[in-house]
């Protein structure tokens, strides 16, 4: 059951839902994909500082065509802009920021995540692997949020008891925004904090390969 079937949040809705939770004043790193849709969806007046692995703190949104600067890109190698007060640095300082625990949140995509907070998101059979900064981010950021479709294209659960793919990090995920709702790894089960509009507990249970405890008390 994929996002294309429009159960729960759309890609936009998912990015919006995560954006709503990014606190004012936070230092945040965004992974490639849906996480990179967050900046343009931040509520008005919220000052958030986006860090990118390639050495910019204070990344802004997409440039107008006449604003494109070859030296300003995000970690996904897309053109970006910088906000006033931004700073630039080399890759070793960039990862000192990551590894040293100075980022409040890393928002990453995910292939598999478990109730103990294990995450797999860097390689899968048939993919050309690139680990990039993912292992550094899950190790260093104070919070690791994963944004993903609740299931893969074949309908298989991505929230599951044990990762079958190689781990990016163990016990690192603190929050999950899936197309079906908001979850937290709670050790032996997932806590469901919120369901996406039109999604019920039974649907979540059926599409999750681990126990889910709902905020209302349902299991």
């Amino acid at each position, binding site marked *: 059951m994929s996002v294309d079937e429009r159960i729960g949040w759309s890609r936009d809705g998912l990015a919006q839902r995560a954006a709503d939770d990014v606190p004012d004043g936070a230092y945040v790193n965004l992974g490639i*994909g849906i996480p*990179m*849709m967050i*900046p*343009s969806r931040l509520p008005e007046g919220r000052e958030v500082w986006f860090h*990118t*692995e*390639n*050495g*910019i703190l204070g990344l802004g*949104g*997409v*440039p107008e*065509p006449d604003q*494109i*600067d*070859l*030296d*300003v*890109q*995000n970690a*996904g*190698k*897309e*053109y*970006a802009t*910088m906000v006033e007060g931004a700073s*630039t*640095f*080399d*890759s*070793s300082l*960039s*990862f000192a920021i*990551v*590894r040293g625990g100075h980022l409040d949140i890393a928002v990453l995509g995910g292939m598999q995540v478990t109730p103990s907070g294990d995450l797999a998101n860097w390689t899968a059979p048939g993919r*050309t*692997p*690139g*680990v*990039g*900064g*993912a*292992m*550094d981010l899950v*190790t*260093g950021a104070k919070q690791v949020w994963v944004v993903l479709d609740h299931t893969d294209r074949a309908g298989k659960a991505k929230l599951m008891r044990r990762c079958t793919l*190689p*781990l*990016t*990090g*163990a016990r690192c995920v603190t929050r999950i925004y899936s197309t079906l709702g908001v979850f937290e790894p709670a050790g032996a089960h997932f806590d469901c904090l919120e369901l996406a509009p039109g999604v019920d507990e039974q649907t979540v249970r059926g599409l999750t390969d681990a126990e889910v405890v709902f905020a209302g008390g349902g299991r």
Partner: protein
Amino acid sequence: MDKIRTDVLEMLSIVPDGASLAVGGFGLTGAPIMLCDALCELDKRDLHIVANNAGIDPTGVGRLAQEGRLRKFTGSFPSNKNFFSLFHEGRVELELVPQGTLAERMRAAGAGIPAFYTPTGAGTDLATGNYPARYDSDGNVVQWLEPKDVRVFNGRPCVLETALACDFALVKAHRADRLGNLAFRLGSRNFNVPAAMAGAVTFVEAQNIVEVGAIEPDAVHLPGVFVQHVIQSTGGWVGNPNPPGASW
């Protein structure tokens, strides 16, 4: 002291086949494309390239990879289709490294730190050695990554990572003077500083060669002591493989 050179082929002719080279840039931002092109024109082979990316398209390190000039690639994001074909055919070795660990290992080489511990990657396949480093021509794994030593600090398992010293470095700077002082522009600094530190001999292609003193002391991003050769860049990249997209 004058580190300015004028003939890129003559300058790079001291690089022997089989050499290891740290290369700056992130994707194509700050990538020393002219220097990579010159290595191709000089027909250098069996190179060990240490860089973040193996190149998205046949430019920079991507061209070196495409032309089969690599015996080994050490980096975090070798997502180049051609490179992966070569890898799975057993024609090139891959040392896959988390990006922050890569930058720190390059810096360590230039800073005289032979090894350091980091929590990054601990417990993953990249630390336990459960990831292929080399295939044979039939696609069987014949070499795995080296398992890394583990030690617990403050209750946290950490892996021992060693310095990534290279024979040479290829770097792109925005401004350089005859002393080798470098200044970079915005997001193009990235791996250029760690690469320059990692190389025993560092070559710089500079977009602008400026008078001594034109880069203020506080504006020097890398002092000339890390640089041996500077040459005027004749170009750079103009196209972007990922045009500005709707996904941002």
